[in-house]
């Protein structure tokens, strides 16, 4: 009996000075009302209401907790609110960007947009479309083709180099100084500004073929400077997690090292490698700055990466927004830019999904 009483008293001591669980909702309701009142004083808007409510709520909840539960609990609550708030703040641009691109991109995404180029579409055509209310002519077909060609060539250059370098780092160069140097500089290369990679390719081809050499291939070289480090890093990680027992088993059977690598190690890691390569493609497909300085800008279809200027989706968006086809009525250009942006986001998201899918579906079946 006496023991039971002490137990009860201890429990009440432990729970003493804690706010009931409904207290937080009371504070929420109070700050909503207070927020509405303050924001209507300075001119009501939903955004203003939300911001003032959030500030009032954080302050009020902290003060209430400080009074009822003590300073330490109050500090803990305050940080919790701030951390949740930071996440919500980080979501605002994401939601806003995706919503903007969807809302403004969908109207422009027609069959006509996908399968015609800007060849022959002048300011006069756009003016006519605005005045007459006719559909906007011109599209991004040339830019889509340019994007695909340049990205394909960049992939063709980067994947063999990146793959072989990763093989060297993991299989041949363990512990060597050269390996340390390569690892370090590959990491540094990840941080090269994309425009500097573009300038490098431009400078290289200027020295080789004379000034003003701007083709799709120059852009592909610039992109591969950005792509190689990503391929190396992801492939290296994947090769490292291949169990050593597999290699040793192959050696024990008298298999040559290079056969072991090509027949045992790489097939085991292929799902991770493929997903890494796909992610690296997703990274470079949206690059704008290197294309601007290496491939120029075109409004018609160019099938040849080795000669002539070329457009890609990002540069198409950039020029349509910055220099509208018709300066007096920029709306058709803006519409085309947002449609192209939607197309680009869809491509990038698709690549990301494919990468995740590849990594999960084709992952090696382990008994563990």
């Amino acid at each position, binding site marked *: 009996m006496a023991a039971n009483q002490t137990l009860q008293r201890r429990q009440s001591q432990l729970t003493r000075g804690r706010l009931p669980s409904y207290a937080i909702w009371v504070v929420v309701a109070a700050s909503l009302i207070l927020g509405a009142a303050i924001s209507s004083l300075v001119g009501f808007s939903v955004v203003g209401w939300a911001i003032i409510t959030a500030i009032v709520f954080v302050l009020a909840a902290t003060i209430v907790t400080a009074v009822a539960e003590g300073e330490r*609990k109050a*500090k*803990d609550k305050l*940080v*919790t609110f701030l*951390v*949740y*708030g*930071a*996440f919500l*703040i*980080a979501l605002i*641009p*994401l939601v*806003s*960007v995706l919503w903007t691109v969807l809302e403004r991109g969908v109207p422009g995404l027609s069959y006509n947009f996908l399968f015609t180029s800007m060849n022959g579409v002048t300011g006069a055509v756009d003016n006519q479309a605005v005045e007459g209310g006719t559909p906007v002519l011109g599209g991004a077909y040339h830019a889509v083709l340019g994007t695909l060609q340049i990205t394909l060539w960049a992939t063709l250059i980067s994947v*063999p*180099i*990146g*793959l*072989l*370098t990763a093989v*060297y*780092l993991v299989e*041949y160069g363990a512990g060597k100084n*050269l*390996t340390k140097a390569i690892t*370090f500089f*590959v*990491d540094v290369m*990840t*941080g*090269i*500004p994309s*425009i*500097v*990679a573009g300038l490098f390719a*431009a400078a290289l081809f200027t020295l080789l073929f004379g*000034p003003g050499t701007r083709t799709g291939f120059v852009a592909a070289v610039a992109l591969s*400077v950005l792509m*190689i*480090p990503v391929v190396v890093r992801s492939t290296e990680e994947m090769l490292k997690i291949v169990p050593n027992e597999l290699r040793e088993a192959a050696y024990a059977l008298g298999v*040559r090292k*290079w056969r072991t690598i090509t027949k045992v190690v790489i097939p085991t890691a292929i799902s991770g490698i493929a997903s890494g390569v796909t992610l690296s493609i997703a990274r470079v497909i949206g*690059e*704008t*700055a290197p294309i*601007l*300085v290496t491939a*120029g*800008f075109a409004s018609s279809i160019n099938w040849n990466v080795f000669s002539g200027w070329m457009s890609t989706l*990002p540069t198409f*968006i*950039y020029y349509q*927004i*910055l220099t509208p086809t018709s300066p007096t009525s920029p709306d058709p250009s803006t519409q085309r830019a947002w449609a192209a*942006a939607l197309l*680009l*986001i869809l491509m*990038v998201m698709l690549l990301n999904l494919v990468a995740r899918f590849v990594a999960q579906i084709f992952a090696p079946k382990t008994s563990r």
Partner: protein
Amino acid sequence: MSINSLKASTDRGRAGDKIFSGVSLAAGVLILAVLFSVAVFLMVQAAPILSADPAEVTGGEGFAAYILPIVIGTVVAAAIALIIATPVGIAVALFISHYAPRRLARAFGYVIDLLAAIPSVIYGAWGYIILAPQLAKGYAWLAENLGWIPLFAGPASQTGKTMFTAGVVLAVMVIPIITSLSREIFLQTPNLHEEAALAMGATRWEMVRMAVLPFARPGIISATMLGLGRALGETMAVALVLSPGALGASLIRTGNQTIAAEIALNFPEAFGLRLNELIAAGLVLFVITLIVNMIARFIITRHKEFSGAN
């Protein structure tokens, strides 16, 4: 006989081994060569600007007078981005690693990674069309009420295409970098440290402050440095969002320029000496980001060795 057959089998395929190891070594060396040649080619193409007549350089006062304002502009834009992105990025990382419900944490991580997947030109377009007009209202208020601070001196830009807007867009692009790197480090905090802190009666925030943050400090510093590297070199956001002009203290007036945007806006039409000038500007940007990234990587590698010993 048996010795001979053994010998014969050891010879077979040896060429393949040699070729394969040689080719992969060559690929590794090629990467070093590429990075080296990036520096060399930029230097070769930039060299004429140093010997050029100062009057022929844009601005007419030599290369140093041309590059200095845009270097300052680059640093200012990156600084604004980091001041916004570092606290938000670290808090979001903490949210995902220690605050969010366990089941949802992975999904939230993917959502933040989505931010990194959106191409920079789309952020630029968004900043140009959506964000700038919104912020312009705030700038008018700032210029009216806080105009006596040089940073907010009026007249405020009507379009909102200012240094501050560029900094905000850069911050949005840097947040996912800081978040994903810090999240990795936060998750590596030894569980025993966290549990020990909680067992001593620490609140969650005290546990984070005493166990997680000290452990993660080098990681946070290098994540911030990598974010800085990205913010310094980011082109499209600034090229689209900022209407460039001369260097000025006010962040809410049109003006200022960054190196990357200067190159992107002028390179397509440049020729002759102007081309060399822009490549020289690119070289300066390359050196700045190289130093920042090398410091960040150095901190990470040192930390890796240290934590590997534990």
